[in-house]
């Protein structure tokens, strides 16, 4: 263990030694889309350059887990959701939240009215679609708060692992599915269902929201003041990008489209997504609100019989970077 720390410190020193170039690699949580507009705007509008940074943005996807990329040394900073980052921390990969551009959660459960689910009381006996792989904990916590079992019994709800599309709802295989305000919900609408035919339960309203897109780095690297300074510049420029994106949503969406190498995104979808994303980032200057962190941890610790984290995490966030970036 000691040797590992020495190695990490040496690596950090090496990184510090080449600080004049100040190259930063950012690993995104998902494919290039307006969910990450702030970083692309900061890149295209030259905000990173103004800070003397040379930023490489790596898009993610269904087969990319940002903490694993971090463990493999493929990125300096990653965008991840807090449940996943805390799980990685407990598994021995000490990630630390240095900034939280997303103030609110965009996750919700979208139900068809004709399935008979229009209130939380009518969940029992129905099938609900949930994303797994670290995104299931807010749901499990919510169900345990409501007192519904999730093992498929008649008194509880049946959970199914949904893929990355909204078919289960369209095919009536599930009464409700997980959606993001900025993405899957609109796929449901595009598929022909109207908002009047749907009931949505926002995790934010249900009190079980967990922190979504935040910026995470390895704990060992934060021991190096030069790295903290680089990150402060990075966070400052990124937040400038986010605020620009909030004010110019359509232009920001076009910047995202220009950076989408797969050509899979459409203009209408990205503009709509940017509009929804702006609602989630509004009111955050990048500094993590400890109260939001506490609520996330509490939600995760109460997530039923098989919790993602078993003990109160320590040192999982720091204001060191944002204090340096925004000194007032």
């Amino acid at each position, binding site marked *: 263990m000691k040797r590992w720390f020495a190695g990490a410190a040496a690596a950090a020193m090496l990184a510090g030694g080449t600080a004049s170039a100040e190259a930063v690699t950012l690993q995104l949580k998902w494919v290039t889309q307006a969910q990450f507009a702030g970083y692309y705007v900061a890149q295209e509008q030259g905000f990173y350059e103004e800070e003397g940074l040379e930023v490489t943005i790596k898009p993610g996807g269904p087969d990319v887990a940002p903490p694993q990329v971090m463990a493999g040394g493929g990125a300096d900073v990653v965008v991840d959701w807090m449940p996943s980052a805390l799980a990685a921390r407990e598994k021995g990969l000490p990630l630390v939240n240095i900034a939280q551009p997303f103030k609110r959660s965009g996750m919700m459960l979208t139900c068809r009215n004709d399935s008979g689910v229009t209130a939380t009381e009518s969940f029992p006996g129905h099938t609900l679609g949930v994303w*797994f792989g670290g995104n*299931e904990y807010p749901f499990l916590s919510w169900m345990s708060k409501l007192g519904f079992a999730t093992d498929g019994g008649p008194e509880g709800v049946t959970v199914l692992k949904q*893929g990355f599309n909204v078919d289960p709802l369209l095919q009536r295989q599930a009464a409700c599915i997980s959606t993001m305000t900025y993405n899957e919900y609109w796929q449901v609408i595009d598929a022909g269902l109207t908002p009047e035919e749907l009931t949505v339960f926002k995790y934010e309203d249900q009190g079980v929201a967990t922190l979504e897109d935040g910026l995470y780095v390895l704990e060992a690297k934060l021991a190096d003041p030069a790295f903290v300074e680089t990150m402060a510049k990075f966070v400052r420029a990124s937040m400038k990008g986010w605020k620009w994106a909030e004010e110019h949503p359509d232009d920001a969406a076009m910047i995202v489209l220009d950076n989408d190498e797969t050509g899979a995104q459409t203009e209408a979808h990205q503009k709509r997504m940017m509009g929804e994303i702006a609602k989630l980032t509004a009111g955050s200057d990048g500094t993590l609100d400890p109260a939001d962190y506490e609520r996330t941890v509490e939600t995760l610790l109460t997530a039923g019989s098989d919790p993602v984290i078993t003990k109160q995490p320590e040192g999982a966030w720091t204001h060191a970077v944002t204090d340096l970036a925004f000194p007032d």
Partner: protein
Amino acid sequence: MALAEVVAVWIGGWLLNARLARVGGPAGRWLPPVVFGLTLLLLWELVVRGFAVSPVLLPAPSAVLVAILKEWRTLGRDVEQTVLRGALSGYVIGCGAAFLVGIAVDRMPFLRAGLLPIGNFASALPIVGMAPIMVMWFGFDWQSKAAVVVLMVFFPMLVNTVLGLAAAEPMQRDLMRTYAASDAQTLAKLQLPAAAPFLFNGLKICTTLALIGAIVAEFFGSPTVGMGFRISTEVGRLALDMVWAEIAVAAVVGSAFYGTVALIERAVTFWHPSQRV
């Protein structure tokens, strides 16, 4: 230091095996593979510990063993869902259907010209494309996994059946005719026995295909149980020890499945030259 340990264990295992191989007898035959396997595991353990590899990247075999012992109930439920329900029913349906179609193809040259290309086409369909569609058609539970397995095993089994049924030589067929044997008699007494090595070949290939199909199909929507479900979820939680535990169980179950079919083959085709020891 860590490197020295690794090299020492490697050389130690090598020397031990070299000595055991010289002993001969049953011990000389069975012990070296065991020693080799244990040496590999020990090397893995030492590398992970000695170089402090993050458990998120590669857990030590001891951690995997602990996960197996601690979570054996979960692993058992996953095996039941994925292997017994998904893979096995798909295997039986797919191989059974291919066998029947194979017989029909053998009888009618018209079908041989028409059905084989279709079977070939079906086997070329990528599983990652078919799995979501099967989920849409047959629902989230094991039925859609069985459907994917049927698609995967059908063609290899069909080709082997058709080849096997053609294996009986013209002279042997003529002999059956001189006995005034009926079609059914020729099939049962000549063609099927002659086809047995081919049939078992197909059945053995399909055991592993069935397992792969059932596991991968679960990545695209599933109930909250199953080996593929567990692997994809635990990767997301970075519980790599559990992922490796599932992989180890899948390897053991897959080998057992293959071994069972191979044993049946040995009992049924004892007369074939390939079975002589």
